[in-house]
């Protein structure tokens, strides 16, 4: 009796595609062809979105941008595994997820172009807008889950956050509430190995992030985040469990930020080039392409063609977004603060309108 073992726990890793794009036959999920193709297209869309956004940022047509290159499998496969009736609660690096949920590309551009119009996501999409303060959104997801459970709506609520965000107190409080209330949450960590300049190893001393779920009495799974099939299977299972009242899950998706943290960042200052090089062969799009090619679902020139088509669509979306920016009026900053504008704000709104400030296309005021 003196020293007795009370509990024991394990953490494991799920991976289905090997580096050459061959699936483990035992684990390969059977997805309809259309879905597989859609996933591939959405991955290309995300990568192309990055290309265009970074170019526009360089041209001064866009503010700071946080790219997703390298993390396409996590976002797109997770999005594909969820139902439209499920909710998604992103951080600030889930362009792909939101695009795959039906958010317009022009809307996504608008966020990075510095307009709240980039957050005008129709309620019916059940997709919250970006959330900048790390980990704060994880609590919102739990609240949504608790509300859905209360209403007996069989929906899963998936929330996304980075490896860095797991150090915040809100992450802890959120997972604890989710466990206590058995809310239908899927906690999906995009572990891209870095939080700006902080490597995963300096963020926390636990061997995995998945094992953090043990602290809350539920289970965590590490998933190969550059493996579309593994992410899909893991999210699908976790979401089903959530919808069926089985409570929350934590998925640590191992991936890699191939690019900059944001366009204001210079990884050369802190990140060893060798590390980056080691991850390039694990590119999630290349890997999934090999899988689809081998299955005959894709031809070798499809990628180039699709990329070009997507490029055209994005170009149009960017133009549309710029047009919206040009038509913003300064009193908008008052319009949505309260349901009805309070008396004390009216003179302030009048003042802003009275100010004769010339605005140029990119929003710089001269006055």
């Amino acid at each position, binding site marked *: 009796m003196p020293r007795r073992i009370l509990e024991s726990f394990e953490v494991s890793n799920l991976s289905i595609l090997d580096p050459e794009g061959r699936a483990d036959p035992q684990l390969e999920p059977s997805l309809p062809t259309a879905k597989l193709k859609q996933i591939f297209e959405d991955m290309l869309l995300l990568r192309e979105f990055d290309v265009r956004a970074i170019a526009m940022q360089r041209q001064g047509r866009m503010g700071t941008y946080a790219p997703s290159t390298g993390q396409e499998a996590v976002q797109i496969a997770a999005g594909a595994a969820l139902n439209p009736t499920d909710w998604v609660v992103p951080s600030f690096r889930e362009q792909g997820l939101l695009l795959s949920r039906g958010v317009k590309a022009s809307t996504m551009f608008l966020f990075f172009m510095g307009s709240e119009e980039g957050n005008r996501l129709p309620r019916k999409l059940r997709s919250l807008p970006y959330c900048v*303060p790390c980990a704060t959104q994880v*609590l919102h997801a739990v*609240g*949504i889950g608790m509300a859905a459970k209360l209403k007996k709506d069989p929906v899963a609520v998936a929330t996304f956050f980075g490896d860095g965000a797991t150090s915040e107190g809100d992450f802890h409080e959120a997972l604890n509430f989710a466990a206590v209330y058995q809310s239908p949450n899927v906690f999906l960590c995009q572990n891209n190995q870095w939080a700006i300049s902080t490597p995963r190893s300096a963020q926390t001393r636990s061997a995995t992030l998945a094992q953090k779920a043990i602290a809350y009495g539920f289970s965590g799974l590490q998933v190969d985040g550059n493996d579309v099939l593994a992410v899909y299977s893991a999210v699908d299972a976790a979401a089903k469990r959530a919808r069926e009242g089985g409570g929350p899950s934590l998925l640590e998706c191992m991936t890699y930020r191939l690019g900059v943290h944001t366009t204001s960042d210079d990884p050369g200052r802190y990140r060893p080039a060798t590390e980056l090089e080691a991850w390039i062969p694990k590119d999630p799009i290349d890997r999934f392409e090999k899988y689809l090619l081998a299955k005959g679902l894709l031809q070798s020139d499809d990628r180039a063609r699709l990329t070009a088509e997507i490029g055209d669509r994005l170009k149009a979306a960017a133009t549309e977004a710029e047009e919206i920016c040009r038509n913003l009026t300064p009193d908008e900053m008052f319009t949505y603060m*309260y*349901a009805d504008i309070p008396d004390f704000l009216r003179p302030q709104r009048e003042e802003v309108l009275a100010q004769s400030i010339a605005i140029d296309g990119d929003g710089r005021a001269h006055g």
Partner: protein
Amino acid sequence: MDKLTLVQAVNRALQLSMQEDPDVILLGQDIGKSGGVFRATEGLMEKFGVDRVMDTPLAESAIVGCAVGMALYGLKPVAEMQFSGFAYQAFHQIEQHVSRYRNRTRGEYPLPMVIRMPYGGGVRAFEHHSESREAYYVHTPGLKVVVPSTPSDALGLLRAAIRDPDPVIFMEPKKIYRSLKEEIPGDGPIHRLGEAKVVRPGEQLTLISYGAMMPVTLDAAAQMGADYSIEVIDLRTLKPLDEASLVASVQKTGRAVVVHEAPRTLGMGAEISALLMEKALLSLKAPVARVTGYDVQMPYYQLENHYLPSVARVVQALRDTLSY
């Protein structure tokens, strides 16, 4: 017709709101089984069940952050902070989300939610149980801030706050939770937020306060006797402030004194003084005076009554202002 204390009026308002709207739910520490440390939620779990009256773990950010999520889903959560002194654990959720969600999403996701918290000193409590920091919330764009001072107002304002489409910080003056009872006919009133109340009309000076300082303020006005005609205004809503009523009163009286227990620097008195500076300077016969808590941390209870504005301090300010 029931006679209710202020805390009973809070309880009644919660009960009525939950009856009329199934989307109203409560969450907070110890609010269910034990009925709240001040008994503000007594009996509600029995009445509405554990799904609608949720005892939570000890985590304020989670309480507010989950309430945000619930409101995004379409519920109308009323979150309790056990004491206002522990709401700072949730301050980032309040500043970064509660105050911003409607605006951020261009109205797509309004946040109809209320955060209730007992505030203020004078109850011989531990440290962090006596603060008055309404200024933090009043300074934050996007919030509404309400502080009742009577049972009937507590009922009418809380019902209004819960029906309000915007997030409301509802601060309850714990010192006067039980200090008087008021008859409240029927279901009681439903107030409009943003309206101050002239609780005593007068001609010579406008005496402004709110919350737990109202009894002190009214006592001081009474002590001045019949020789002086003092108009006393209870702000009730600190944001949006009823500027028109304040300005109209001071344009009439030419003098104003503001009383609050929060620290002086950047307390409500500063805003009201600045407002009167801008809108009523030419009417002023004396400087707007502030009778406030000092710019120190609220002392432990042995000295707290030296910190809180006393009737004597208010009377002194009234005399000084009247004889300026």
